[in-house]
C-alpha cells in the first residue's frame, strides 16, 4: 500500500476514534464533589410565570439551555415528564443565552447541561449534553425519590 493511501486512512481512523470517544462521553454524567448549594434567588428563575423560591421536596433538576440549542427541547420534555411522574421532584430550566455570567459561574461549555440537586439544593450530579437513558432516573433514586 502506498503512503498516500495510508496517510488518508490514518486521518480517517483518527476521526473515527475521536467520534467514538465523543459518543462514549457525551451525556455521561459524573458525581459532583464539594457542597455547592444553588442560590435560587441569584438564579432568579420563573416557573409558570412565578419565581422559584424553594427546592423540590426530595430533589431538583436544573437544566441549562440556550435558545440556539437543538437538543434542549427534547431534554426539557424528558425531565418535565420525570417531574410529573414523581411529585417530590422539581424541574427548573435556566436560559443562559443572555446570561453568560451564569455559564461562567457553573463552567458550562455546552447545552443542555443538567444538574441534579438534593433536597437542600446541593449539586450532586452533573451531565453535559443529552443525558444517556436512565442516568437521571438512577441519580434521583439514589436521592430517595420514589
Amino acid at each position: 500500500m502506498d503512503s498516500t493511501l495510508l496517510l488518508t486512512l490514518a486521518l480517517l481512523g483518527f476521526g473515527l476514534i475521536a467520534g467514538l470517544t465523543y459518543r462514549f462521553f457525551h451525556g455521561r454524567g459524573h458525581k459532583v464533589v464539594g457542597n455547592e448549594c444553588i442560590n435560587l434567588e441569584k438564579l432568579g428563575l420563573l416557573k409558570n410565570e412565578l419565581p422559584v423560591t424553594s427546592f423540590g421536596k426530595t430533589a431538583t433538576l436544573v437544566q441549562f439551555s440556550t435558545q440556539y440549542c437543538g437538543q434542549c427541547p427534547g431534554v426539557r420534555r424528558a425531565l418535565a415528564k420525570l417531574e410529573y411522574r414523581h411529585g417530590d421532584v422539581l424541574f427548573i430550566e435556566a436560559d443562559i443565552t443572555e446570561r453568560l455570567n451564569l455559564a461562567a459561574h457553573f463552567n458550562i461549555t455546552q447545552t443542555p447541561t443538567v444538574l441534579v440537586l438534593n433536597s437542600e439544593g446541593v449539586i450532586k450530579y452533573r451531565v453535559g449534553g443529552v443525558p444517556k437513558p436512565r442516568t437521571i432516573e438512577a441519580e434521583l433514586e439514589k436521592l430517595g425519590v420514589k
Partner: protein
Amino acid sequence: MTTPQMIDPRGPRFGAAITTLLSLIAFYLSLSDSQLAYSTVVAIGVLFLWSVLSPRTHPAGLAFKRFIKPRIAPPKELEDARPPKFAQQVGLTFALFGIVGGLFAPVFVTISAAFILIAAFLNAFFGLCLGCQFYLVLRRVGVFR
C-alpha cells in the same frame, strides 16, 4: 429578540457528508497532485461561502430537500440555524487558510483539507458539530455576541 430561523438538523449533516467526501479527495490529492488538490479546496471554499451568504440556495441544501427529505421521516426536532451557520464560517476560515497558504506551500492545502475532513466527518457521522460546541465557549470568552 427576533424569532430565529429553524431548520431540519439533518440538512447540515447531509451537507457535511458531501464536504467529507470533497475534503477526503482534496486531502488524498494534496499528497500526490497538488494542482488538482488546490482546485478542490477552492471548490470547498466556494461551497462554504455559498452556505454562509445564501444557505437557502446552496446546492447541498436543495439536494437534501429534493431527494433526501421526502424519503425520511419528519424531523423530531427543529434546530436553530445560527450554530450550523457559525460552523460553516469556521469551515470557510479553514478553506481560506488552505487557499491562501496553498499559494506559498502545498502543505497548507493538506493541513486545511485535513481539518475540514475531521470536522465534517464528525458532524456527518456522529452528529458532533465542532463549531456548535465552540459557539457557547467563544461567546463566553467574548469573541462575539
